């Protein structure tokens, strides 16, 4: 009964951890996940994904979902 939370790039480096498991709660959103794991407002350029797709902070999170947070992308 948990949500898998992943971090990438500079965010992972700042937090010093690649991933955490978070207990799932009813009516949980991506914003709730961020608040629970970071205890601070999201940086203005923070991006998020749920189950390998971009999403927004209002997205509902289900038990077993994978939620990721990361800075702007810089590939190519």
């Amino acid at each position: 009964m948990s949500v898998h939370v992943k971090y990438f790039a500079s965010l992972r480096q700042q937090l010093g951890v690649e991933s955490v498991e978070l207990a799932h709660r009813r009516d949980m959103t991506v914003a709730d996940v961020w608040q629970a794991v970071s205890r601070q407002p999201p940086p203005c350029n923070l991006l998020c994904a749920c189950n390998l797709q971009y999403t927004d902070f209002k997205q509902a999170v289900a038990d077993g979902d994978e939620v990721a947070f990361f800075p702007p992308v810089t590939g190519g």
Partner: protein
Amino acid sequence: MRIEICRQPFAPWRELSQHQDQHLAAGSFGACAALVGSMRDFNCGEAVTRMTLEHYAGMTERQLRQLAEQAMHQYALLDVLLLHRIGELRPSEPIVLVAAWAAHRAAAFNACRDMMESLKSRATFWKKESVASGERWVQANTPG
């Protein structure tokens, strides 16, 4: 269609030539447009000696496949080849190869550009550079 994330250096022009020889019938296409992005030894006014590229395994592969499929459909392409490096790179090494084959040049040009811009703005890769003062994450891509 071939989409691949490469952990080791690749030779883009050899990959392009081999893909064309093996997967496209002679005479079936009128145009191939390709973009090879490679690592510079400078950025933001500083010399860059090394770069590390990381990605979101699973999500990135899905994104690359989706943007290639979108271009195949939108431009009626005959084929797409898309390779992207991850790991540690040195200056001059190729980072990305995007190639589109089509009956006519407009479709090939436009598809190649669209796929590249979509990759740059959406695909989950991140660059970290080594400069004289240490390491730094690249904050944003330069405008196309």
